[in-house]
């Protein structure tokens, strides 16, 4: 279900200016944006955009100022008329809809939240929240009731009869969100919805949006120029550079496999520790000792072969138990009364695949003891060396990290 495509954007071009035909020809010839502006006086805001937005995902579009983000999102509900292409929402091209159909699409399928809120200052909070329903002709009593419900959900209970001008920015944007949610849209369009807010409030709003999304499961198109915000909110992120989509991927993919120099410079500025997870930096399929079958001799042989002084121990179901150290193994060698079980070090923390690097660092008690990565059933998936996490947080590229991990494992 969640893999269904909600909106498919195909070959979308958006050009501002009078001589669109010429501009289009030049685009086809691969002429650059600045050249086109010089020759035709047309601004090419978006070129050849192709992407799918899946049902129920948060799709983030990120790019610097002027990269065409607002233009792109406005093409989805045709606040801006694209020059060519298709925006297929639930199988029908929005760009082919006539005026009446378009209004119906805007009323029923989309809700939109704006950077500067776009509220009506002469009306109360409740009446603002009910605006979308009012436009649809919902009777007053019903729409106000609905508005009260939604305002409660977004945390504005008790403010319903205040004028919007009396509220703080964060609260105004909650009204904006309530207004967008009140007509129960399938797709939520959010153009830099949190950019005008204080950092602290912005963080809160992001958390709340994620919370809401857990129960709402709307398709959300979220525009931002802030990579941290994109990484936090996005199930997938599209990166826009100068009107072109240069990469689409999960936050993880964007960080670990930046498609080009532009994305890379973007990514370098982010605090990687919050984003990179155990899965990315762990050493996969580590050599392990199976408690029931393998004793001291086998362990020593494996240690010799891998050159490692520490190995993880698992039970017969590959469930992680602890680590063994080479000097402990040497001590019990030949002693029939002792087994590996007696020397397992069980106090090392284990982390999940999706644990971010910053939390892994916090889990280390002793930098010489690695940390095991397990799945939700406690099965061993990999091992993370302290040095690997550190170098990741410092921010080296993937290959460097891989060699770091190898080096670390060989110590």
């Amino acid at each position: 279900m969640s893999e269904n495509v909600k909106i498919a954007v195909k070959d979308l071009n958006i050009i501002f200016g009078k001589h669109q035909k010429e501009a289009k020809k030049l685009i086809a010839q691969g002429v650059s944006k600045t050249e086109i502006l010089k020759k035709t006086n047309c601004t090419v805001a978006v070129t050849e955009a192709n992407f799918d937005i899946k049902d129920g995902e948060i799709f983030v579009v990120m790019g610097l100022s002027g990269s065409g983000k607002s233009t792109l999102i406005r093409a989805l509900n045709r606040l801006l008329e694209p020059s060519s292409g298709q925006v297929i929402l639930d199988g029908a091209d929005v760009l082919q809809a006539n005026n009446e159909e378009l209004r119906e699409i805007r009323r029923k399928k989309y809700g939109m939240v704006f950077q500067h809120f776009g509220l009506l200052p002469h009306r109360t909070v409740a009446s603002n929240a009910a605006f979308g329903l009012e436009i649809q002709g919902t009777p007053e009593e019903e729409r106000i009731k609905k508005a009260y419900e939604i305002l409660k959900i977004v945390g504005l209970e008790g403010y319903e009869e205040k004028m919007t001008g009396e509220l703080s920015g964060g609260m105004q944007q909650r009204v904006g969100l309530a207004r967008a949610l009140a007509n129960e849209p399938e797709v939520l369009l959010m153009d830099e919805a949190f950019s005008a807010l204080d950092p602290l409030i912005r963080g809160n709003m992001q958390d709340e949006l994620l919370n809401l999304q857990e129960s709402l499961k709307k398709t959300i198109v979220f525009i931002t120029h802030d990579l941290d915000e994109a990484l936090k909110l996005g199930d997938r992120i599209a990166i826009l550079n100068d009107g072109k989509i240069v990469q689409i991927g999960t936050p993880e993919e964007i960080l670990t496999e930046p498609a080009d120099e532009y994305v890379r410079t973007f990514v370098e500025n982010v605090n990687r520790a919050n984003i990179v997870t155990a899965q990315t930096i762990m050493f996969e399929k580590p050599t392990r000792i199976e408690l029931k079958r393998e004793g001291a001799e086998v362990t020593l042989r494996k240690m010799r072969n891998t050159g490692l002084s520490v190995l993880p121990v698992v039970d017969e179901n590959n469930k992680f138990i602890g680590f063994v150290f080479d000097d402990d193994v040497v001590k019990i060698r030949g002693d029939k009364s002792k087994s590996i079980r007696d020397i397992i070090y069980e106090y090392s923390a284990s982390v999940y695949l999706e644990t971010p690097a910053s939390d892994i660092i916090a889990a280390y008690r002793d930098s010489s003891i690695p940390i095991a990565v397990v799945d939700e059933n406690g099965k061993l998936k990999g091992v993370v060396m302290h040095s690997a996490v550190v170098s990741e947080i410092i921010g080296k590229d993937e290959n460097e990290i891989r060699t770091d991990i190898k080096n670390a494992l060989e110590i």
Partner: protein
Amino acid sequence: MKYLEIGKHVEKGIDWLAQNAEPFFDAITVVIEFLVGAFQDLLLMPHPFLMIAIISILAYMVSAGRKNFFTALGWKKGRFLGLFTLIGLTLLYLMNFWNETMQTIALVVSSAILALLIGIPVGIQTARSLRAEKIIRPILDFMQTMPAFVYLIPAILFFSVGNVPGVVATVVFALPPAVRLTSLGIRNVQSDVVEAAYAFGATEKQLLYKVQIPLALPSILAGVNQVIMLSLSMVVIASMVGAAGLGQDVYKSILTADLALGVESGLGIVIIAIILDRLTQAAGENTNRK
């Protein structure tokens, strides 16, 4: 010897209009006469003392604000205009200008209403279409720079003498600020509010009535104030074509060099001006604050 007879050609055109569009002008005459007559009758119907009381209380209520009729705050805000109206109108009554005063108010209010009825819709149109703006702006400039006296001549040709040509000339003269301030107010509505309305599927009409006009209201009301003041400033000029009221007395005082009459009737116009100005300003302020 003039080489170019622009004036003659315009005159010919206007003569032609006066003869051929007579039903049209007759219709306008009927409307204006009815409007002015109705206001005059209404204002002169009660005894002057009763009317003075009504207008003074009204002035107090408007400037005190809707919720504050009986509060200390309301008294503080409303007492000036309330008392000024009471004293001013009593003064006019004592100077034996009562009929003229009411006639003047009837003329000014009728002209202002007509100017607003035309000006506000035109202003809305110019705000919403660049082409309309391009056509209408120079016309407004023309209307505002042409000396007001000139409007009297075609007004006489079309409507002969009396209140009607006076009102017509006044409407033409007082119209521009209604158009300009309405248009300005609508253009200044924040673009993201307009965008939001469209994004939720508003029709053009819904956008206009639910968003643009309410948000432009302070500016539109400033336009109302200006229209009324300009209408009042036309009172004397309009009296030259026979419009009734205090303007007649001022005009007469000029012709006969009667200083006493001039002072008295001039004072009367000032009193009316202050009352109308403060009244419309207060109305505007109280809607702004809401």
